[in-house]
């Protein structure tokens, strides 16, 4: 088993929480893991990405080679396209449809959707809206993780456990909100 995952978004959108959740689930499953993060300057509203590699065999490189990623999980639509060189031929692209516009030359929504649709295996969901409807407006990132969960080779239950662990310190209410977000994202995925 091997899953190479690129997580992408804009600094402050919470991609590291997604990475941490998948990481905790990987540890629970006794898998090897390497996860490379971006800290420092780029966190200030710039593009951020994380390379997450999980496998049942030891992993060499902290970075995913081009063309190897099984999955791109993005909390921002334009950012999902920035990492296409990493996506494998059969890889899945799962992204939020809501743009984060903080640059003057941001492309139109139609242009972005058209590019995403060129990828055979893609899934676009309105994570923010789904999060709101499930009563956990601030958990858009967990909605995206839920939507991507069928493409991650681990039991859904272990992701749920990871979310419980990750948010455990913040109290039952926050754990429940994030679990709801995770489930509503998963429900939004055509199985």
């Amino acid at each position, binding site marked *: 088993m091997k899953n190479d995952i690129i997580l992408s978004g804009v600094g402050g959108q919470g991609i590291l929480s997604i990475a941490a959740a998948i990481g905790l689930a990987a540890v629970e499953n006794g898998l090897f893991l390497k996860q*490379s*993060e971006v800290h420092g300057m780029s966190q*200030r509203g710039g593009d951020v990405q994380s390379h997450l590699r999980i496998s049942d065999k030891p992993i060499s490189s902290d*970075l995913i080679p081009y063309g190897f990623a099984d999955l791109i999980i993005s909390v921002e639509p334009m950012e999902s396209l920035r990492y296409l060189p990493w996506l494998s031929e059969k890889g899945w692209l799962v992204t939020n449809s809501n743009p984060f516009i903080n640059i003057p030359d941001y492309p139109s929504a139609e242009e972005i959707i058209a590019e995403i649709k060129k990828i055979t295996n893609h899934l676009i969901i309105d994570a923010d809206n789904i999060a709101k409807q499930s009563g956990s407006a601030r958990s858009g990132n967990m909605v995206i993780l839920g939507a991507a969960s069928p493409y991650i080779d681990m039991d859904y239950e272990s992701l749920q456990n990871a979310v419980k662990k990750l948010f455990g310190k913040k109290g039952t209410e926050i754990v429940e909100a994030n679990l709801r977000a995770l489930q509503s994202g998963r429900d939004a995925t055509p199985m």
Partner: protein
Amino acid sequence: MEKLLLLGDEAIAQAALDSGMSGMYAYPGTPSTEIMEYIQASSDARERGVHMMWSSNEKTAMEAALGMSYAGKRAMVAMKHVGLNVAADGFINSAMTGVNGGLIVVAADDPSMHSSQNEQDSRFYGKFAMVPVFEPSSQQEAYEMIFDAFHISEKYRIPVLFRITTRLAHSRASVQRKKALKEKPLSIPSDPMSFVLLPAIARRKYKTLLSSYETIKSDSKVSVYNQFTNGGNHEMGVITCGIAYNYLLENFNGKSPDIPVLKIAAYPFTKETIREITSLCRSVLILEEGAPFIEEYLRGILDDGLRIYGRLDGTVPRDGELNPAIVGKALGLPVSSVREVPSIVKMRPPSFCKGCGHGDMFDALNEAIRPFGPGHVFADIGCYTLAALPPYSAINSCVDMGASVTMSIGASDAGLFPSVAVIGDSTFTHSGMTGLLDAVVKKSAVTVIISDNSTTGMTGGQDSQATGRLAAICEGIGVETEHLRIIIPLKKNHDENVKVMKEEFEYKGVSVIIAQRECIQTASRRKRNEAANK
């Protein structure tokens, strides 16, 4: 023993705690910051009373760590690569004094300059100071090496340089802990003169250093990290340094390569270490994360021996960090085509957070300086450097910590008027204060704006030594009270702030304007914590 999921930085911190370290010293700097932050978050460190407060700069951190070593205890000091320039005086001379308790100097290099102004390779500093250098390739190796680095440091009474790069510092993997060692007791050096570098003593100490540097090459705790594995095909061998090894293995799908490989992770090494692979192979590819450090040595000036491929002949790009694709290409493996980034994807550079006080300060500065034309503003290292980009385009320099103040002095000496420095609060106490003293003594016609957000912002909001002290420091240095102005950078104060700046530009002496408003990231974190603790 327990397994932990740790960043490279955190693995180093955990290993230092488990090696019986008594004091951690540092100034924040990407990608090294998380080492100190991990110690600060550790309940074990707190219970033991391990030193864990930030220092004013890398030099004060380096020297304080040396002081703890003098007193017989194990100490570690961590910084980003350019921080080692600041600490260099203490670092180089600590090799001369030698150590008492073990001393590790961690330098976190940033090839490809993700968050830095250059990509200098700290291994040159190790050679320059003649101290051993460890360069781990994985989080687990980093953890284990720290134990040996402390051991070597004490055995040869020499500081050890621990070199990591961004991809190790900020990558997480599982780490197996070892049995923890006890901290060392307080004990002053047996030779009371060994830290006194008077010329006569220094000459003697230098001979000791020269001889230790030779002996260390053959020490098994060093040489064990330089591993040679033979492979069937002797056409080309590969020498890797640090994490380049991982990219090599990645290209062989984690299997043992069928070519000879020398993995270097500790310096200095013996001639024999290199000879084993060079005598076997017709050519050698050298993969280094950083500068062509080993490659230059192997080529020598004449470069007429072995056939060598590396960064100097273009087989590997001369600059920037490595990745699996670059290494694969250098190995001559077929390059498969990959998807392209659509042209509609635009650059998204970092920018000020929404509502950031620096932004309001720069709005006022841009208006106040406009009548004088472009080219008057020297800035420094921090979030406010982002004002170089549109829509602000407000600054004309960013060189090194503190250079805003001193460059504004030199430009004013040359006749530039007005000459304005913009510096953050933490950068000011790091390296701006001495420059301000120069300005006061010379009565330079400069205006120094200290953009005070009461934190070390760019690295994630660490405590700033300046908080609550800036006005007193400036007064103490000799800035006249009537030209020490405090403003609040908010939109509603814009006109008033522009007026203050214009007034101080006109003053033909030293003015300091402190623009004071808490970092909005720090403020919201503080409010969240206060709410949670209610």
